[in-house]
């Protein structure tokens, strides 16, 4: 329904092209996909930093249980009061921070950055469209996202603080905690989900409908395919969680028992519940989303990496079609593996066999994608600029993350590894040195197009090496901890369990790794803002000598994107074509003999 209204062309604004739109119209309530993309990007980067800050505080606390957190501790006490008494994080606060770190990173930082920012900005450009199919809807989806973010952020300051039941929000715990944080979380999620749904409708419709003449499906850059699949995952996997969110909200505010079984005996509200519900139902609905969601985190990242590798090896991607089919297969299978997060909730042989099989199946397209990317390097002429550094580091980092998914994917080994730091290590390798590296690569790569200026190469390299080294210092020890049995979500860092002391000692190593990782971000942040204002201007619209359409626009692209009508003649990665005059042939360049 929404769609119908929003599809109204924003005619009025364009009718008289000379009237400059006001500041608000241009930057805040803009319907231009590029502005919306930038809004998404900046908001998400701030959340990314905030999510990291939460985790730094937590890491400090668990490396030094029972001691006040320096610098941040007193601040927390001043702002949040009792929960940070004496500058120490109480378990409640630890749980809040943990739950919100997960939520913020996934729903407010990475997805908005990968799909909201990169997708919004690049998809119309890369397919040769003048804007998204539904520009007003696009603006609305950012606004929903922003509101959701505000609600999540505000929940830190309500009495009792933010949600404490993990990003997974398993009931009955989520209901049993007698504060309103969970209610805020659920409300925030409803907004975020709505935003994602609107956004993905828009991206899919844009890709289907607005491809420029000649831009056939098999000429789409891989990035566009990745966005296409990711948007489908959002579109179809999120609604069940929205339904579940509404039900949990009812449990919380209307006293129903969708997820509360008969015979609960927790003090307070839950004890009054009528019962008859099922806690596992929530888990199914949650993971029905959350597994596809992790591929939403990784697919756009793979898309970015593919673009950058093709550009910087100066040769076509190897096995483009295979890549596309693998991405589609990945998307499809990701809907039927979700219960591998639930092996130990009590699962019989039949269902466990089913989910193990699908989990192993899904690793095959991942391996295929990675193999194609690796083989693409062979025979190239590799240019090691900052984007390429991040892109190449992505490959082994994702490899570690993906491979450690295998022992988790077998229910038998999951007995020992479930809910340990091994899991934390597994998925951080895919999302942190994986997706975040891809996003960094993307930022360095497309920065000249967006701002018309270039980021500093030297500081980019400093940022790269710092991040690469310290990401590994942070996450590699987690496998050791996990194998030795150390559990996640421990507000004391596992001190009450009989772990080997050296394993325990690793908490300090991780802490210092994380601190250094934070320091390594400073050159990036300064470089980023400095370059926006003062960076050297690009001399060409296509500084990387790239082939895809976004580089065939003015820099930065104006409203409407292209100067001239676009006609596409060839595939996306025509680099080093034998016999061509230069080593790249843009997609819209007229064929030599017409």
């Amino acid at each position: 329904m929404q769609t119908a209204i929003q599809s109204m062309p924003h005619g009025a604004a364009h009718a008289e092209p000379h009237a400059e739109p006001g500041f608000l119209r241009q930057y805040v309530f803009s319907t231009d996909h590029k502005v919306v993309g930038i809004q998404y990007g900046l908001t998400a980067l701030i959340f990314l930093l905030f999510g990291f800050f939460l985790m730094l505080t937590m890491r400090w606390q668990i490396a030094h249980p029972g001691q006040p957190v320096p610098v941040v501790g007193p601040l927390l006490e001043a702002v949040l009061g009792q929960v940070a008494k004496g500058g120490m994080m109480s378990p409640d606060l630890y749980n809040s921070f943990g739950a919100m770190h997960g939520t913020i990173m996934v729903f407010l930082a990475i997805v908005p950055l990968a799909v909201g920012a990169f997708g919004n900005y690049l998809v119309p450009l890369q397919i040769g469209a003048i804007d998204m199919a539904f520009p007003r809807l696009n603006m609305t989806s950012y606004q929903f996202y922003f509101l959701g973010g505000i609600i999540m952020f505000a929940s830190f300051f309500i009495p009792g603080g933010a949600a404490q039941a993990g990003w997974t929000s398993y009931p009955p715990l989520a209901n049993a905690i007698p504060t309103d944080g969970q209610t805020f979380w659920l409300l925030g999620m409803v907004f975020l989900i709505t935003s994602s749904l609107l956004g993905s409708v828009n991206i899919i419709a844009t890709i289907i409908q607005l491809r420029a003449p000649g831009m056939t499906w098999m000429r789409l850059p891989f990035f566009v395919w990745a966005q296409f699949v990711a948007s489908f995952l959002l579109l179809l996997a999120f609604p069940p969680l929205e339904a579940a969110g509404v039900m949990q909200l009812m449990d919380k505010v209307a006293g129903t028992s969708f997820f509360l079984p008969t015979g609960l005996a927790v003090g307070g509200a839950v004890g009054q519940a009528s019962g008859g519900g099922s806690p596992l139902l929530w888990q199914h609905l949650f993971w029905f989303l959350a597994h596809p969601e992790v591929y939403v985190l990784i697919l756009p990242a793979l898309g970015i990496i593919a673009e950058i590798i093709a550009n910087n090896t100066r040769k076509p991607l190897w096995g483009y079609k295979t890549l596309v089919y693998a991405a589609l297969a990945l998307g499809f299978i990701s809907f039927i593996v979700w219960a591998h997060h639930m092996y130990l909730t009590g699962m019989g042989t039949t269902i466990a066999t089913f989910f193990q099989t699908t989990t192993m199946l899904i690793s095959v397209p991942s391996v295929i994608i990675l193999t194609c990317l690796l083989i693409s390097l062979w025979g190239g002429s590799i240019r090691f600029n900052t984007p390429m550094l991040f892109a190449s580091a992505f490959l082994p980092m994702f490899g570690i993350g993906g491979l450690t998914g295998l022992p988790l994917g077998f229910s038998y080994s999951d007995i020992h590894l479930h809910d340990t730091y091994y899991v934390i290590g597994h998925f951080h390798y895919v999302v942190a040195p994986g997706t975040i590296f891809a996003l960094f690569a993307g930022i360095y790569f497309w920065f000249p197009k967006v701002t018309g200026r270039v980021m500093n190469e030297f500081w980019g390299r400093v940022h790269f090496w710092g991040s690469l080294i310290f990401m590994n210092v942070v996450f590699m020890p987690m496998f050791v901890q996990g194998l030795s049995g150390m559990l996640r979500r421990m507000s004391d860092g596992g001190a009450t369990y009989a772990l080997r002391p050296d394993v325990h000692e690793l908490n300090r190593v991780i802490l210092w790794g994380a601190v250094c990782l934070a320091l390594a971000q400073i050159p990036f942040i300064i470089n980023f803002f400095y370059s926006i204002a003062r960076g050297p201007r690009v001399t060409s619209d296509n500084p990387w000598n790239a082939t895809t359409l976004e580089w065939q626009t003015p820099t930065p692209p104006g409203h409407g994107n292209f100067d001239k009508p676009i006609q596409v003649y060839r595939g996306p990665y025509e680099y080093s074509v034998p016999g061509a005059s230069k080593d790249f042939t843009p997609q819209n360049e007229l064929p030599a003999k017409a």
Partner: protein
Amino acid sequence: MNKLLGLPEVASAHGHKVDNFIGYVHWLMIVLFVGWLCYFLYTLYRFRQSKSPQANYAGVRSHFSNYLEVGVAGVEALLLVCLAVPLWGEVVGKFPQAEEATVVQVVGQQFAWNFRYAGPDGKFGRQDMAWVRDNNLFGVDPNDPNGKDDVQVLNEFHVPVNKPVITQISSKDVIHSFRIVAMRSTQDAIPGMRIPMWFEPTQTGRYQVYCAQLCGNGHAQMSGGRLVVDTPEDYAAWLASHSGASMSFE
């Protein structure tokens, strides 16, 4: 390999199978990773711009990678079909007979574990959800004579060595996860459900029970649970000394 991975001590019959399996999977991972990494680093080195100024449009022509992919999938399938599935079937499917095992009911609560034994008569008192109260976690019918000699203990529970143990796991309030690392056994404790799990301890000793599922602000402190594996004689003595000491419910 298991040493290398730093897996903790194991004291149950199937425990080393879990460890070995983890070992096999890690072999696969390491071989793949090292292979890929060597190829990757070599490529980056060999095809850097200064050394290879002209890229090759066609790239790799051989189909080696297809064999590789099929190989990976094959090994995964092998692990799955030959090990993971049957072994899981052993853990969750092939339960020992209740008569030949020590049967213990487990109920998690914030933030401790409760254990209940049938007592000398070998019969649990009748239980029903409707009886569950704050002071009657197992929902035992107070009028059933079978329940009179039941044993109920908090946090520390005993079992005899070399005899299968069946634990019936549930929870009173929120989801916990009953995990004994040394037994390589984990099962979520979910309110409203009673899920069986079994293992066979092969060494006497005291082992820590972990709570592996976030269950509130005391989750990290829910570490007081102990499994004590006794010799059969010690176990019998222990059970007798606790018989009938179950709580009274008014």
